């Protein structure tokens, strides 16, 4: 069912494959170099986690504060808003004032969420 | 600041304390006040809080080792006190431990002057004076498992002088001792 439409993605696919190749080929070269000339020598100290010259104590994978999450929520909401704004923006020049106002209301709704979060001191990093 | 007057003031304020003026022979003329262990904290508190003296700033804490004095010797801690308000000083006060082995306890002045915190830890680390009432008395300069008190006069350096191309005097002696030890142990190679 190759419709004409799909052709446009082909170069992108090739670009992506090439990009992966671009990243992997030097790594492969480096690997070959290490095989041929400069052997890798892992060791318990060398491959230990770096922590300012000391032996690392405790795990790094710990539970973080919830503050990060609040920002992520606000971001998610506005990211979704962008999804609605984009088609609107494309169609904007052909739209009536009423449609624009409809979008303004939409934006204001979300802005209200922002203002609420602002006033609730959600956007305060502790 | 007249030391005699300070002494009498203290004696009036802290009954029972035994003070002694230690005369300094050098041209600097900085005579000092020797406090007894039992009343030292009270005296220090008086020195800090007395509105006339108002020695709110403890500048310097020094440990001194006197191994040869008075039989078994003693450790001494010297405080230099100033006033940021009256802008006078230094008032030198000193305390002595009983001996250098076991009875090495002295009252800590850290609760009075935070600035003594690290310095007292240092004296503890390097001289082995134990400060009672210090909130966090750990070694500060040497590592935790270290056992000696290196600033004492009778401290013996670790034996790590293998290579000493320009050795002489005490250094040479140590290096020689080292090589002798190595020969006994079958050579260092």
């Amino acid at each position, binding site marked *: 069912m190759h419709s004409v439409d799909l052709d446009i993605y082909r170069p992108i696919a090739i670009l992506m494959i090439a990009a992966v190749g671009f990243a992997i080929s030097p790594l492969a070269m480096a690997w070959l170099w290490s095989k041929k*000339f*400069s*052997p890798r*020598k892992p*060791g*318990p*100290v*060398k491959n*230990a986690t*770096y922590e*300012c*010259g*000391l*032996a690392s104590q405790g795990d790094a994978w710990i539970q973080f504060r919830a503050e990060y999450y609040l920002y992520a929520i606000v971001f998610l909401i506005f990211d979704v808003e962008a999804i609605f704004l984009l088609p609107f923006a494309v169609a904007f020049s052909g739209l009536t004032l009423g449609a624009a106002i409809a979008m303004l209301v939409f934006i204001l709704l979300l802005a209200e969420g922002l203002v609420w979060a602002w006033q609730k001191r959600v956007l305060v990093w502790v | 600041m007249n030391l005699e007057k300070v002494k009498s003031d203290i004696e009036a304020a802290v009954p029972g304390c035994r003070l002694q003026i230690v005369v300094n022979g050098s041209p600097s003329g900085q005579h000092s006040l020797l406090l007894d262990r039992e009343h030292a904290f009270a005296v220090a508190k008086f020195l800090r809080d007395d509105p006339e003296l108002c020695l709110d700033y403890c500048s310097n804490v020094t440990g001194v080792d006197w191994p040869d004095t008075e039989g078994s010797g003693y450790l001494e801690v010297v405080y230099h006190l100033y006033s940021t308000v009256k802008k006078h000083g230094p008032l030198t006060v000193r305390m002595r431990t009983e001996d250098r082995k076991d009875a090495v306890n002295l009252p800590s002045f850290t609760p009075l002057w935070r600035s003594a915190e690290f310095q007292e830890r240092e004296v503890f680390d390097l001289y082995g004076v134990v400060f009672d009432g210090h909130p966090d008395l750990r070694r500060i*300069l*040497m*590592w*935790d*498992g*270290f*056992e*000696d008190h*290196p600033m004492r006069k009778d*401290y013996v*350096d*670790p*034996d*790590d*002088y*293998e*290579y*000493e*191309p*320009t*050795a*002489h005097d005490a*250094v*040479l002696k140590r*290096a*020689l001792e080292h*090589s002798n030890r190595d020969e006994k142990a079958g050579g260092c*190679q």
Partner: protein
Amino acid sequence: MDQKLKIELSQQGIFATTLEEVYNWGRKNSVWPLTFGLACCAIEMIATTMARYDLARFGAEVFRPSPRQADLMIVAGTVTKKMAPQVVRLYNQMPEPKYVIAMGACAISGGPFKQGYNVLKGIDRYIPVDVHIPGCPPRPEALIDAFMTLQKKIDAQHLTGDLRPRHLRADTSSEFVVPQYGAHDLEPAKNPKLWNITLKATPTEPRAGENEPGKS
């Protein structure tokens, strides 16, 4: 590269020669030091990277704070016994090829502080040092000079053959013993694999006539 070396290399084939040249050229011109200052010398090391002396001209201003990305450890200052394990660990954590410049008297031998109980008498008791710069502290120019000495040293290294440097050999470890804190001293007090001088260190007798210290 001297002539003899070239001939020797040409026997290994022109490819290897070119490869070696490119390899050494790349390594010597892209030496990224570790951001690692210990004491007084560190200030002169910083001064070397500053406007007047500008180590950047050699492509070496990329001071990497993480040992994983650094090539050169400039031991700039006194290594105390309390610090020595950390220095060795950092060196171990650097990827090969890695170089060490012992900058200043303290790093080489303990320097003026070597009589101290907490001072390591030379970092080469634990890690191999490529270039020593005497001085207390060495002038920034001296560090640049040492840097160029290191570049020359890198340039003279072989990629193949028996003379190749340590990091190209599979049989040598790139890790060195990290000393532990002991009750009186570090344990071990030296890395015997590195610190095995065959010199008779001291005169057998004090002030004994013609006996020469420092020479065997």
